[in-house]
């Protein structure tokens, strides 16, 4: 378990925007994952995806890690932002774009 948490932590540390999702960005395996990918593509933001269907440990581990029972889950700048509903709400209210821009502008890391 500690290993899974470490793996998750290092993924969110090393990527400005991470989507833990079912499937990948070309072939999402769930409507909510697909909708979330689409929002970040609309914003033109580079993002990393982790397909939880490929790794049972991550699939369960991320739920404990975030204290969040559902997939997809979005991390921006190492911080848990929420699932599909929250991302959509932030996108529609115009709050998501500045969050994304700020994250991408901060530091020179990946």
């Amino acid at each position, binding site marked *: 378990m500690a290993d899974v948490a470490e793996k998750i932590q290092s993924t969110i540390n090393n990527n400005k925007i991470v989507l833990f999702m079912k499937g990948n960005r070309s072939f999402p395996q769930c409507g909510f994952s697909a909708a979330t990918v689409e929002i970040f593509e609309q914003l033109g933001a580079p993002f990393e995806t982790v397909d939880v269907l490929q790794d049972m440990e991550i699939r369960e581990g991320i739920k404990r890690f975030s204290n969040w*029972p*559902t997939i997809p889950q979005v991390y921006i700048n190492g911080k848990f932002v929420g699932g*599909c509903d929250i991302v959509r709400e932030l996108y529609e209210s115009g709050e998501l774009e500045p969050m994304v821009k700020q994250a991408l502008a901060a530091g020179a890391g990946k």
Partner: protein
Amino acid sequence: MDASEIEHMIANGIPGARVEVRDYTGGGDHFEAVVVSESFEGKTLVERHQAVYNALGDAMRARVHALTLKTLTPAQHANRR
């Protein structure tokens, strides 16, 4: 699992909340919920959704495949009308 069962669980877990749940596929596992509560005042969306998930407990993990959530304070709800 039906919509009214979910409504009761959320209302029990968040006293005073107004809850409306709809089964949008009719299959008993995809739901849409609007929850209006004073207790959401000053809370982030993540904290609000976590409060709802906590109210549902194991049912959320085991029996509900998808739950679309709208969490509003009474003031926000009034503005939507």
